[in-house]
């Protein structure tokens, strides 16, 4: 029997050895993947013993800090957001019961010191072995609290969003979304957040409208159409058009903007004047002449059809583009599937995020090059040493340099004598474009836009503002907000 016993011994030992292999798989190979899962409460709760890194604004103001509490003999660190709802959408929250959002979610590895930087790993392991508190790394953001405050005040009581970028680097200077919520209440009193009311049908206070809100761009999209037109070489800033007040689409008249029932009609105009006065009929004809594919390709060169790049979680960012039945729609044959005339002035199921429209303004401002947007300037270790630093990166070349310069001039005309005069800043050249999208039939409320940059000669700020459910036009509702934000961001002009 001894031979059988020896074999049985091998079987028994083999079974136990398989357990060691299995344990190794779950504890090492699969470990990282499992700890990232949203339903992994253990990893989430365990991180409360880590002293999470601080999140600071560009000037060092603290946006997220920790409150130390002793629970059951353990020292735990709960998150505190001293600025309340001011930075809620960008910063997000870190809680036990509702997981994480915003930069708190996507930058969790840095904030808990579990990033793969060798120094962080070594420090963390040493702290763990010695029983000391693990400290995370601090985030230094690019956002300017002063301008953020202005933006949030301007948006107060409304549904909308504002994004300001530095067109030279892509740094996010302001990211405001209303209605907002108090991140300190997410854990303790989420009911209060879910009951927030607002002027728009779905208040959705947790939604970051700046990156995840999709709105009909309306006439602000004419900048994209103009880019396609100028880049094609068939049009120049001086190209002449005859505005009859309407254009013919599929045998029907599509009218210009109707001011108090009177349809505008400008007669003979050049390209600059067409943008200055936002003449739908002219852009409709340009769209038909260029074709939908050409306009959509110009949009793609600005970053449409891709999640706008930013450090926030990808489920908090939406791609801009044509949408069909709630889904992004990239037509295979735009010539037959898309109405080029309506697309040219930003209707035709076109939806865009404020961040994407800010990238359009920034692209024109930066001589045609769109820089990759970022909001985390640098990451520092608890001892102050640098862990990571964001270098500005070129994201896309959206157009020829000459096109950018022509568009710059045309957009300046919008502010000096066109639909966007409300954005004028004394002593500063401002370039901009209005948008007023009728979201329903005639007489319903509008989604209004203003995209702009300044100073037009050497732009340092590009901005996009969107407002939902407005009775006025983009030039009267959104332009003053864009102006206030730019004033707060231009050097030597910050409001008290």
């Amino acid at each position, binding site marked *: 029997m001894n031979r059988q016993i020896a074999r049985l*011994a091998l079987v028994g030992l083999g*079974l*136990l050895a398989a357990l060691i292999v*299995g344990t190794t798989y779950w504890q090492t190979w699969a470990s990282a993947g499992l700890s990232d899962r949203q339903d992994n409460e*253990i990893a989430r709760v365990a991180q409360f013993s880590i002293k999470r890194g601080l999140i600071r604004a560009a000037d060092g103001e603290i946006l997220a800090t920790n409150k130390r509490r002793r629970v*059951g*003999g353990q020292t735990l660190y709960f998150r505190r957001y001293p600025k309340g709802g001011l930075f809620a959408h960008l910063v997000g929250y870190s809680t036990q019961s509702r997981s994480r959002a915003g930069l708190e979610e996507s930058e969790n590895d840095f904030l808990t010191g579990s990033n793969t930087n060798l120094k962080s790993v070594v420090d963390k392991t040493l702290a763990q072995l010695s029983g000391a508190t693990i400290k995370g790394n601090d985030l230094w953001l690019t956002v300017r609290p002063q301008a953020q405050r202005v933006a949030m005040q301007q948006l107060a009581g409304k549904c909308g969003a504002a994004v300001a970028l530095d067109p030279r680097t892509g740094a996010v200077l302001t990211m405001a979304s209303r209605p907002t919520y108090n991140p300190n209440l997410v854990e303790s009193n989420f009911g209060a957040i879910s009951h927030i009311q607002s002027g728009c049908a779905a208040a959705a206070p947790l939604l970051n409208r700046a990156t995840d809100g999709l709105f009909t761009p309306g006439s602000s999209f004419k900048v994209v159409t103009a880019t396609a037109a100028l880049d094609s070489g068939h049009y120049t800033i001086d190209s002449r058009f005859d505005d009859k007040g309407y254009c013919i689409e599929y045998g029907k008249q599509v009218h210009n903007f109707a001011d108090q029932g009177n349809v505008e009609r400008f007669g003979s105009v050049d390209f600059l004047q067409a943008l200055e006065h936002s003449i739908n009929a002219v852009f409709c004809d340009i769209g038909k002449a260029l074709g939908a594919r050409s306009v959509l390709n110009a949009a793609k060169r600005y970053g449409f059809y891709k999640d706008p790049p930013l450090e926030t979680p990808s489920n908090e960012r939406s791609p801009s583009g044509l949408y069909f039945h709630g889904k992004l729609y990239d037509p295979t044959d735009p010539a037959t599937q898309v109405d080029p005339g309506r697309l040219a002035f930003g209707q035709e199921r076109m939806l865009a995020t404020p961040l994407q429209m800010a990238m359009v303004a920034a692209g024109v401002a930066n001589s045609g090059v769109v820089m990759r947007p970022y909001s985390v300037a640098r990451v520092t270790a608890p001892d102050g040493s640098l862990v990571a630093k964001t270098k500005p990166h070129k994201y896309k070349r959206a157009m020829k340099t000459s096109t950018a310069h022509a568009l710059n001039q045309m957009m300046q005309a919008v502010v000096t004598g066109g639909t966007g005069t409300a954005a004028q800043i004394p002593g500063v050249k401002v370039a901009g474009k209005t948008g007023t999208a009728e979201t329903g039939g005639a007489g319903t409320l509008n989604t209004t836009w203003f995209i702009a940059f300044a100073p037009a000669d050497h732009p340092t700020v590009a901005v996009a503002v969107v407002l939902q459910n407005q009775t006025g036009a983009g030039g009267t509702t959104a332009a003053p907000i864009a102006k206030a934000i730019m004033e707060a961001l231009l050097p030597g002009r910050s409001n008290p």
Partner: protein
Amino acid sequence: MSLRNRELMNLVVVGILTALGFASVYIARQSVVSTASLSYAGFFFALYLAAHLVCRLTVPAADPYLLPMAALLTAIGVTEIYRLNPTDAFRQGLWIVVAVGALSVTLALLRTDYRRLESYKYLFGLGAIGLLMLPALPVIGESVNGARLWVHVGSLQFQPGELAKIALIVFLAGYLREKREVLAQGRLKDFGPLLLIWGGAMLVLVETNDLGSALLYFGIFLAMLYVATGRVLYVGIGVALFLAGSAVVYTYVGHVRDRVTIWLHPWTSHPVPCALSGKPALRQDCASYQLVKSLYSLAHGNWFGTGLGKGTFETTSGHPLIPYLNTDFIYSALAQELGLVGVAALLLVYMLFVTRGMKIALLADDGFSKLLAAGLTFSFALQTFIIVGGILRIIPLTGITLPFVSYGGSSVVANFILLGGLLLVSNGGTVDRS
């Protein structure tokens, strides 16, 4: 050094390890646990010293490593149970006292000649069947998590299956020793008992709704049949029959089907019907909740673990994150706090135990002793594989105890009796050899 002195030395090492374990839990959880925790190590050392003295008197020539290894495993178990729930640890401590008592009685009664058990083999066979049927009885039987494995009399609860396992091994050792030549010839009529026991295992499976127990009993049977006859073909036929039977049970018993579904697809990305709440939910929030949380516990342990007493098993407000942590899932708790390094060492102790047990079977000089030692040892290995393999998603998860470590009275008592059996066989074997 004499065998018993070697055992004593090993026990001293185990005592020191136990003291370190409790001290570590105490340091990590000072505000929750009392200084009384530090006396646990002393208490355990005294208890195992007593067991050692019993061994000295009754089985002086027995293997000197088995008792220290069992002591180490129970100490690790009690330390972790203490860390999870001090009240449970106190009760487990009492059960270990009872178990050491049972070990002493077993050794004292059988020290002169355990081989006489062979004459009572049919009594053990009937006893095993009787014990297995107990949970199916109407008044005293009880169903936990869909599996009928428990018996409760008054406030006392136990799993008779643990004792049935040992009775079954004694019966098989006696029966197979007697019939091994006949069985090895492979005449068709001799397959009768094989089919009978296969039928029995299937019956247990249907009665208890528990795949794990059926696998355990049938696995023990096949292993011992193989040792007795040396015919691999029987094992092949047995495995085929078991798979066929399981397939039938899978088709007709919803509980078994659920276990397999959970095993194969613990995570879903879309809500599926949830029997617990009656509403659609993600499977990881419903049926496979335990398994998934336990895997998260393992993953959180990583290489070195969080350290004893520092694992995360509750939310900061004290809401438990993993159910049945100190019984079925004690391995996940240990894996989180001791890390891969710690539980791999634990599994190595199990492997050493199996090695010693099989060595005893090899050295034993009569068929009954060989079969008994091999059967007891293999049951120990297989049971460990079934529970830990279930946690690791190697096989479908079934609620069964981790020998010596899990919280549970019947399990601890049964395992000490198993230990007693191995000590007796090794004592006999060594004496005869010299």
